[in-house]
């Protein structure tokens, strides 16, 4: 019996120890931001959010998803703010009444990454020329294929290059992974394949293997980020005041400086773009 009693005492103690996890609802003064994997994984949020929280006492909880999913979370009212990079989709989001007060915040750029040996001879400053070369050489190319902003950009560039990668290379050289930026980079690294990536994730990515940047600096590869307030008229629970404080701070001189000051290996990842 003594053993039983001890066992049950242990169980009871466990139950008590867990109890505090249950009532953990939303804390005061916090907002949920639905954003993209590129901003989270590049480490930008880890750099700028503490500054904002120190100043305002508002905690920012970032849920990192693909742009499409992030907008969807906003549409359902599960976030207060969305912070994404797909201008056409953002404008549609606002036009449909799900979001209000869209603001430009910053941009970064895409880079075409590929094997150091560059077997397709894709290197240069022209993204369409690079993709054409890859398609011509049928060199392995990894696509995120996850309806993310990066995926949308990749398809746009292929179109501009006059290549239909799905029709020409699906199952052979064009590999659709359906994954986020990091996993797609891991795949490309182990396959020694070409891949379109955002510079931020690429710079903070550690498992590069034989990969390097092949194409960069093409003006078409600029990747603008916008921030949108989830429409309080549609979702009354949106923490409007705190959310607006966050958006205001992002586009303020202070927020813009914070963004510009984030560097990896001395390289700036994001460039302020707010107009006042």
């Amino acid at each position, binding site marked *: 019996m003594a*053993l*039983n009693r001890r*066992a049950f005492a242990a169980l009871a103690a*466990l*139950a008590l*120890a*867990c*109890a*505090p*996890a*249950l*009532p*953990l*609802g*939303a804390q005061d003064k916090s907002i*949920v931001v639905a954003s993209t*994997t590129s901003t*989270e*994984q590049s480490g930008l*949020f*880890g750099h700028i959010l503490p500054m904002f929280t120190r100043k305002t006492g508002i*905690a920012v*909880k*970032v*849920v*990192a998803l693909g742009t499409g999913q992030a907008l969807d979370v906003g*549409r*359902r*009212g*599960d976030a207060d703010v969305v912070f994404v990079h797909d201008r056409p989709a953002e404008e549609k989001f606002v036009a449909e009444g799900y979001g209000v007060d869209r603001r430009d915040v910053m941009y970064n750029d895409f880079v075409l990454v590929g094997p150091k040996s560059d077997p397709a001879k894709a290197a240069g400053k022209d993204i369409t020329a690079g993709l054409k070369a890859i398609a011509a050489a*049928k060199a*392995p190319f990894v696509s995120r294929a996850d309806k993310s902003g990066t995926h949308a950009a990749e398809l746009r560039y292929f179109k501009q290059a006059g290549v239909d990668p799905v029709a020409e290379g699906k199952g*052979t*050289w064009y590999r659709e992974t359906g994954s*986020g*930026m*990091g*996993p797609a*980079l*891991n*795949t490309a*690294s*182990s*396959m020694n394949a070409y891949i379109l990536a955002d510079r931020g*994730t690429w710079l*903070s*990515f*550690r*498992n*590069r*293997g*034989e990969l390097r940047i092949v194409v960069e600096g093409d003006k078409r590869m600029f990747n603008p980020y916008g921030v949108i307030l989830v429409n309080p008229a549609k*979702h009354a*629970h949106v923490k409007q005041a705190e959310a607006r404080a966050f958006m205001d701070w992002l586009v303020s001189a202070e927020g813009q400086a914070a963004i510009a000051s984030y560097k990896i290996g001395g390289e700036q990842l994001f460039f302020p773009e707010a107009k006042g």
Partner: protein
Amino acid sequence: MRHRPRSLCKILPIGQPLRPPPATVNTLSLAFGEAWAMIARADPKLLEIVALSLRVSLSAVVVATLLALPFGAALAVARFRGRDALVVVLNALLGLPAVVVGLAVYLLLSRAGPLGALGILFTPAAMVIAQAVLIFPLIAALARQSVADAWREYAEQLHSLGAGPLASAFALLHDLRFSLVTIVLAAFGRAIAEVGAVMIVGGNIDGFTRVMTTAIALETSKGDLPLALGLGLVLLAIVLALNVGAHLMKERAQRHHG
């Protein structure tokens, strides 16, 4: 034939030690080193993540156990129409992918969903619910099985004493408590090692809903394999320690109680 599909392990980063570049050859030893260093200096970030994982999964196990044990036992002992169908459904639910559970709980808790007013999506409470839903069928089905086996031995005696279904179910649960601990621990192992559901309903928010598995997924995404494997080792150690404990306890109890 340059583009012939490569084997899966070539695509997974784990398979890398086979490749020539020396940077990745020692991924595993790096991971051990990093994991050990983090544990040795009691890295606060690591501790926070581990503590949240334990809190969420233990809560889920407590909630699921309190509901699933009586349910499984009742299913073993009571006779009613549709019982066999229910057992089949319950056993089928064992194979439920965590992501599906996560999605269902997400749609339920989303502001646009039926329980949206609670406002607990992207909080630890949502993760507790998702994990509890995930492991409920596991605990209920295994408990039902072990109670049903014991019931064959005990049924006549308990009927003879005049014990009703409720008293019988609780007597059996009490008698089987040491096997049930093993079941509950298996459920805990599934809960704490699960990534799909908590990722969806918790959102992997840094410092708030980031647990070991979602942190591992994130670090893997970032290509930070040593840190990911390090966290994986911590996870493994916790689950292993719990199971060793349970095994010893069961051994002792069996010697003691026969």
